[in-house]
């Protein structure tokens, strides 16, 4: 007897065709399912480690780092990267960067302790940020860490600590400046244009209690205008050369900070991030060329330190999730509810993250809104996205989530999930376990009078 083969099912969809204003993008032609990450099937990863799941590709981290390092090292003789812990301080991630040669760049005692715990020598931990207590200073001075001074209160506080310890700390000042980009970042450090930076430098040198070894700036975040770095490099070089002229002191390093954009698409951007994000070569060309032409003698070119975080790690991170439900909103738009939301994907507040189905899908798309699972109105992952018909249980991959999500994620309503790192041989390693209720409640204590109640 002949058996009738059933057809593969696809959810029925109908979409109104609107003849709107044409754009250069044309029509979207379809979806490319993202079924594997570094050779491992998404469905196998979620079956083994659960959903939602953060996945980090060690291969991508190393490739991206080497691309960035080479872009600078091919243009400048003396380059050092320092891994920005706040961008992603999973120990496994930090250690990949340290294996590649990165120092650590931290902005709190917590991050400082993490870097020490990872085995980074104290003199290779750059201590940035406005939040350093006297005890933080004491520890950093004893470890010989470069301390980047943010304000005069810190400068005076550090002088006091170093006097008590009888040690000369290695310091730099953070400099803020007008680089032609708005808004100008002037909340951190000492201003270049109004002379405050020079005053701080003079104070440090004349009081002779600290060794001024570097100058630091960080001109912004997600900087799409590379020209700002040329302006910044020129002003930093000007300060360093003036210090040499006036005090005969060689500045050992210029730390140009970070702020390089990743290929994510910012909300409201007309063009996609993959089309407009400058390459590492673009940033390197601006910074290195400016420094080389600035007037240093070639043997006195200071070490160039870079603290870029986002651009080095964003591409390596994926968030895998599962469709919990589909529903229709009052205007007929489709809403798809995922098992991850803004609690895990903090960056969805400012990016239009690329999302792909993790299984074969129809080429028919519907306008949809992608919600997270939280019982909160703000939990929107994508406000307007074209998606193929997805069924409950289907899986999705969110791209470029490596930066800031695993540090800014919130234990809000639901617990944080597993993080897996896929090594160079394609082996998955659990690098952070999902949280349990006990993990959180062990930090709480209940006063005796609240221990019992009758309902």
């Amino acid at each position, binding site marked *: 007897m002949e058996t009738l083969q059933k057809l593969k099912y*696809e*959810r*029925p969809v109908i979409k*109104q065709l609107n003849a709107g204003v044409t754009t250069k993008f044309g029509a979207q032609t379809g979806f490319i399912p993202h079924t594997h990450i570094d050779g491992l099937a998404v469905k196998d990863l979620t079956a083994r480690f659960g959903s939602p799941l953060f996945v980090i590709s060690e291969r991508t981290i190393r490739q991206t780092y080497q691309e960035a390092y080479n872009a600078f090292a091919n243009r400048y003789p003396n380059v050092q990267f320092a891994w920005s812990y706040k961008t992603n301080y999973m120990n496994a991630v930090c250690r990949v960067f340290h294996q590649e040669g990165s120092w650590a760049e931290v902005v709190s005692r917590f991050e400082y302790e993490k870097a020490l715990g990872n085995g980074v020598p104290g003199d290779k931990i750059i201590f940035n940020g406005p939040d350093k207590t006297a005890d933080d200073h004491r520890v950093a001075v004893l470890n010989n860490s470069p301390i980047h001074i943010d304000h005069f209160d810190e400068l005076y506080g550090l002088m006091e600590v170093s006097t008590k310890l009888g040690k000369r700390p290695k310091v730099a000042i953070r400099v803020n400046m007008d680089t032609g980009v708005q808004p100008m970042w002037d909340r951190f450090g000492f201003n270049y244009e109004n002379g405050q930076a020079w005053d701080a430098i003079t104070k440090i040198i004349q009081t002779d209690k600290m060794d001024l070894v570097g100058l630091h700036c960080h001109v912004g975040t997600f900087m799409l205008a590379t020209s700002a770095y040329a302006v910044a490099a020129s002003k930093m070089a000007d300060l360093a050369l003036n210090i040499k002229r006036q005090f005969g002191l060689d500045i050992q390093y210029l730390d140009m900070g970070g702020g390089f954009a990743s290929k994510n698409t910012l909300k409201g951007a007309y063009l996609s991030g993959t089309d407009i994000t400058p390459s590492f070569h673009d940033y390197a060309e601006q910074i290195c060329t400016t420094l080389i032409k600035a007037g240093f003698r070639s043997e006195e070119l200071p070490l160039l330190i870079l603290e870029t975080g986002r651009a080095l790690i964003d591409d390596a991170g994926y968030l895998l999730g599962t469709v919990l439900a589909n529903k*229709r909103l009052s205007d007929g738009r489709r809403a798809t509810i995922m098992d991850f939301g803004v609690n895990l994907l903090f960056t969805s507040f400012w990016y239009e993250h690329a999302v792909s189905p993790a299984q074969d899908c129809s080429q*028919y798309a519907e306008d949809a809104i992608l919600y997270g699972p939280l019982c909160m109105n703000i939990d929107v992952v994508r406000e307007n996205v074209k998606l193929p018909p997805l069924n409950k249980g289907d899986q999705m991959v969110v791209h470029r989530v490596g930066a800031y999500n695993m540090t800014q994620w919130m234990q809000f309503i639901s617990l944080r999930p597993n993080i897996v790192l896929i090594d160079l041989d394609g082996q998955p390693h659990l690098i952070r376990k999902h949280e349990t209720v006990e993990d959180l409640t062990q930090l709480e204590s209940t006063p005796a009078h609240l221990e019992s109640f009758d309902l």
Partner: protein
Amino acid sequence: MFFMKLKKSVAISENGFVFNASRGDSFSTNPTGTRILDWLREGKTDTEMKTLLLEKYEIDEATCEKDLYDFIKMLNQQNLIEA
């Protein structure tokens, strides 16, 4: 069981282009959608359509029912059927 009728003004092409001549609206639908529209044209009820879908496709009953309900709601919202 519900009877729904596709509006007379609605034309459906084999490749899923749908045109409602009375309003000038055009739509695109996928093969499953095209098939359901054809069945509606033939005057099938929701129960009959569900049975047909279950016979022809690899689909469980709950998903079939949810998706059919959703699709009919969308057709209604787009003024393509009269209940």
